[in-house]
């Protein structure tokens, strides 16, 4: 593997907290790397150190094997979670403004086509919908045709349709050979987009690998979900987890579990069987729901 970006024992200590406490990983060129973690896990601080926005208390960030310097900003693109833009500027004017800040840039027409901005190119950026605004911010992140793009929770707050549209844009960027570093709260997003994932908690990386590999390593079972009322007062010799008005039964042998449920007289009309997801893994590793 030829890493485009490497974190080496990154640390960030504030007077009262160790936000990041010795984080190391490599990001392979042309991949999408996902950084996941509950709120306060240190992933935002880690990403800001990788972006060169926050100076680490210790450790190093390497870009193509070299310590990052001022020229690094010419080579990367960043989409922050929430970015204010200058008031009264249209989409086109914003693109022109950010284009002027870089030596090498993509033609604005290409950005407009790539991020589907054509319909609202001359609209004041304050009047955009959530999805349109995120597409503009993505276009701004791509304005210098960067090799490495940071997307910090890019689809938070978007409706499902807008989120799926945004995923298509990210896939298109990946198809151009770009490297993407993504932080997200949505496990489905990480599963669909990321080739490689690091899960952080308490300032450290606690799990690392491709989504499929992580699930295979941690789980060999499936989940059977039933309404809580269906199993109420039934003698069951199975490990049952309550989750609101539903119960979850982890099972390594689905057939045997269904037979046991039938034997206990549990109605199976509303039975749902699913594989384990990244969300399950996340809950197991961190003990917290992502969308706290």
């Amino acid at each position: 593997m030829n890493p485009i970006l490497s974190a080496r024992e990154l640390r960030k200590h504030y007077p009262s907290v160790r936000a990041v406490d010795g984080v190391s990983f490599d990001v392979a060129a042309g991949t999408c790397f996902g950084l996941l973690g509950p709120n306060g896990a240190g992933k935002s601080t880690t990403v800001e150190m990788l972006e060169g926005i926050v100076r680490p208390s210790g450790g190093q960030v390497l870009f193509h094997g070299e310590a990052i310097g001022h020229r690094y900003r010419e080579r990367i693109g960043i989409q922050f979670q929430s970015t204010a833009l200058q008031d009264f500027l249209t989409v086109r004017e914003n693109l022109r403004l950010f284009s002027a800040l870089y030596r090498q840039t993509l033609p604005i027409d290409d950005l407009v086509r790539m991020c589907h901005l054509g319909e609202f190119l001359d609209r004041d950026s304050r009047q955009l919908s959530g999805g349109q605004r995120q597409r503009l911010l993505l276009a701004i992140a791509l304005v210098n045709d960067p090799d490495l793009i940071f997307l910090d929770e890019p689809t938070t707050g978007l409706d499902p349709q807008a989120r799926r549209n945004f995923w298509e844009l990210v896939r298109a960027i990946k198809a151009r050979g770009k490297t993407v570093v993504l932080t997200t709260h949505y496990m489905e997003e990480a599963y669909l987009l990321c080739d490689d994932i690091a899960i952080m908690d308490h300032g450290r990386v606690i799990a690392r690998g491709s989504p499929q590999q992580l699930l295979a390593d941690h789980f060999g079972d499936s989940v059977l979900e039933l309404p809580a009322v269906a199993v109420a007062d039934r003698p069951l010799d199975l490990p049952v987890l309550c989750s609101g008005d539903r119960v979850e039964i982890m099972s390594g042998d689905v057939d045997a579990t269904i037979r046991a449920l039938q034997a206990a007289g549990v109605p199976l009309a509303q039975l749902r069987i699913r594989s384990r997801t990244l969300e399950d893994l996340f809950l197991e590793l961190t003990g917290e729901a992502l969308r706290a």
Partner: protein
Amino acid sequence: MRRLWAVTWARSVEFLRDRSALGWNLLFPVLMVVGMATVFSGPERPIFNVGVIGEAEFTAATHPFFATEGTRFHHEDDEAAAVAKVERHRNDLLLDLRVSPARYWVNPESQRGRLLERLLRASDPQAVAQAVSGRAIRYVDWLVPGILGVNMMFSCMFGIGYVIVRYRKSGYLKRLNATPLRAVEFITAQMLSRLILILVVTTGVYTGCNLFLHFRMEGHYVDLFVVAALGAISMIALSLMIAARISSEELSGGILNLLSWPMMMLSGVFFPLDGAPQLVQTGARVFPLTHMLEAARAIMLDGAGLAAVSGSLAVLAAMTGVFLVLGAGLFRWTQD
């Protein structure tokens, strides 16, 4: 009513927990009271300002006019300079007691001068009026640099300082910091944008008003433009220094007000500071506006060239340098 209270409570807690804004709101009235008390304390301020040539004591026995109430009398040594002060509304009347009958000068454009003249003639019918040399300066001639200057000052202070704090708070500065843009480029761009705007607006307003009011202009417009530009740059630099790292709009607004209001009151915008206590006159020297107005009036009213106002220009340049060095050193892209 419950909703009203809930929102009132939330906003009050927000304000109380924003320590910088809270501290500021406690500090500001104290500073204002102390400041105003210093400036306006002591005996009641005189209404009129009268220069006197000659060794006379200011008693009614020497001359009945000295019994006039509400008037500050002071000695003047140089007759030409003292007459010039009358022309420029810095003295309301000049009285020469070296000769008998006494001679006096008033500016026919000055209402206060004309009122004093009647009081003088009532106490000394023999007194002889002297013509002020050349074209008498109207109050508006004296006032126009002040009005344009104070407008420039507010534009510089709030158009730069407040906006940068807002950019920082909203995260726009953080976004710019993620690009190759350097702090010095950003700051220079802000200065240039505001400077061009101010000079165009001020030139336009001056030119427009001049069509109707025909301001007195003894010097060169180029010199006046240089003074205006340097004055604007120094006030922009002051504002940049204040906005260098603050993230609270309330705090920055307070500090900008604390500077701009005394600057408006004490830089000689509306009336000369000759009658003010020495402490106030000395204190006003810290404001860039004071030096800009002195230079502008010298050019417009006295026909001074750039060499004659080089002292004011040097002070403005030095202030600009200090403000910029401090502002650049303190500058932060993001909230702490």
